[in-house]
């Protein structure tokens, strides 16, 4: 996790963040191709599990996983778990993204701040974020604060880098147009820098969100009595792989949904982009 931004898109449960050029231009006739393999594998898995080829105490059938989720939902047990996990991610994401945006804007826009702050932040970025866990627990206790802070740390760096590099890469020629029309200071930031930085900002936000989901798992595994991560551990302790798989599936779905939400917002705001792969997955 040291090189977090490079690795993040691959590890993130929400899937790769790099824009895939195939999404928009393809008509509805094309999409099922990507679904063939997963569906075939699921069917095979289901059949093998039903025939008893796969040991049910290690790898239960997909239908079993789905009924486990349905059961959790029916008894109401699911909702607090979902709520806690979502709440932690939301808080951690808000905190990390907010700080990342503020500091990234400072270091991106003001060379003095960059020289002052960036070396420290880049140094901290090289610490694998999970290495903070024991310290956070020692400082902040085992409860919510340490979890939220850990998630925030994960979210912070991609957002910070996205904002800073985004601002630095704003086209000088467009900035000059702004200056010719008398813009300076905040007006220049608002009318040129802000819109020009948005694409990089959204990449940073989505990478950050992906890391946020990864770190909530770590935070909940290290000790929690609520949350999807708790379900993982619970499933392991009680020898119920269907619970573990149910939790994994829910993580995937939640990660995907929140990422799609961000992507949708990004598409709305960045519809003007003129790039090969303007689409967000």
């Amino acid at each position: 996790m040291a090189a977090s931004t490079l690795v993040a898109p691959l590890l993130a449960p929400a899937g790769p963040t790099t824009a895939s050029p195939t999404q928009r231009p393809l008509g509805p006739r094309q999409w099922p191709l990507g679904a063939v393999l997963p569906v075939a594998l699921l069917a095979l898995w289901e059949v093998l599990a039903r025939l008893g080829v796969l040991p049910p105490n290690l790898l239960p059938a997909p239908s079993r996983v789905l009924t486990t989720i349905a059961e959790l939902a029916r008894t109401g047990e699911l909702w607090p778990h979902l709520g806690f996990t979502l709440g932690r991610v939301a808080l951690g994401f808000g905190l990390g993204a907010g700080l990342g945006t503020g500091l990234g804007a400072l270091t991106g826009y003001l060379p003095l701040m960059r020289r002052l702050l960036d070396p420290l932040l880049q140094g901290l970025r090289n610490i694998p974020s999970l290495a903070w866990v024991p310290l956070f627990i020692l400082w902040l206790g085992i409860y919510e604060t340490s979890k939220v802070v850990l998630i925030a740390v994960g979210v912070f760096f991609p957002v910070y880098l996205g904002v800073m590099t985004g601002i630095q890469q704003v086209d000088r020629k467009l900035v000059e147009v702004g200056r010719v029309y008398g813009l300076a200071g905040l007006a220049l930031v608002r009318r040129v820098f802000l819109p020009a930085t948005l694409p990089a900002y959204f990449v940073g936000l989505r990478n950050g969100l992906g890391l946020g989901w990864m770190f909530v798992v770590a935070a909940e595994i290290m000790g929690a009595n609520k949350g999807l991560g708790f379900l993982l551990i619970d499933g392991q302790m009680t020898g119920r792989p269907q619970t573990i798989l149910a939790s994994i599936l829910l993580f995937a779905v939640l990660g995907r949904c929140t990422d799609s939400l961000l992507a949708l917002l990004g598409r709305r705001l960045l519809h003007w982009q003129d790039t090969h792969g303007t689409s967000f997955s």
Partner: protein
Amino acid sequence: MLQLEHIGKQFANGVVALHDISLHLQAGEIVTLVGASGCGKSTLLRLVAGLEPPSTGRVALAGEPLTAPHPAVGVIFQEPRLMPWLTVRANVAFGLAQLPAAEQMARTDAVLARVGLSNFADALPRQLSGGMAQRVAIARALVTRPALLLLDEPFSALDPFTKASMHEHLLDIWADTRPTLLLVTHDVEEALVLSDRVVVLHGHPGRLSQTLTLDLPRPRRRTSPEFQAWKQRVLDALAVEVGA
């Protein structure tokens, strides 16, 4: 209206782009800068635009030293430089933020009609051809009604017909409000159609080589013998510089 006094420009990397340029423009005058590639024409315009300070000498507008971009000075760059996130209309209105919305709208519509892009008012820059984008850039500069307009090869991306019609539009606007125009071009005929004076730069660093004051009556016809004679004189002036 515009005075350049002994302007020199050396860049931070040591390149000397301009040496001892002095030039005065009368209000309402159209002056064209010609000269070989790299002799500092764009640099000279950037100094007048207030985007960069001269290393030596001074630039003054109506007697006031010019050290930063000035609201009365408009610039059309060598490239369109449109904001990709703004529609054509919003790009054109970019410099009008202080005006009431209705006035912005009226001015923008008028100037868009003038450059023949009324139908593209709501398009985004990525939907425009290169020539259309450059016309939007021209509209964006014209709409603020600058007293001094700097143009850096503004028409070089246009086809000959659009180019000729842009010349006419520019001269129409000039006849209306008599802005001072300082224009860089590689197109000798363009210089002759538009300008009162042709200033030839040469060398590295760029220096003034000669100034030709055109006594051709307007409107100018490219086919007239006087026009052709002037064309030869400007080409000779450029050739002297290339030969030197």
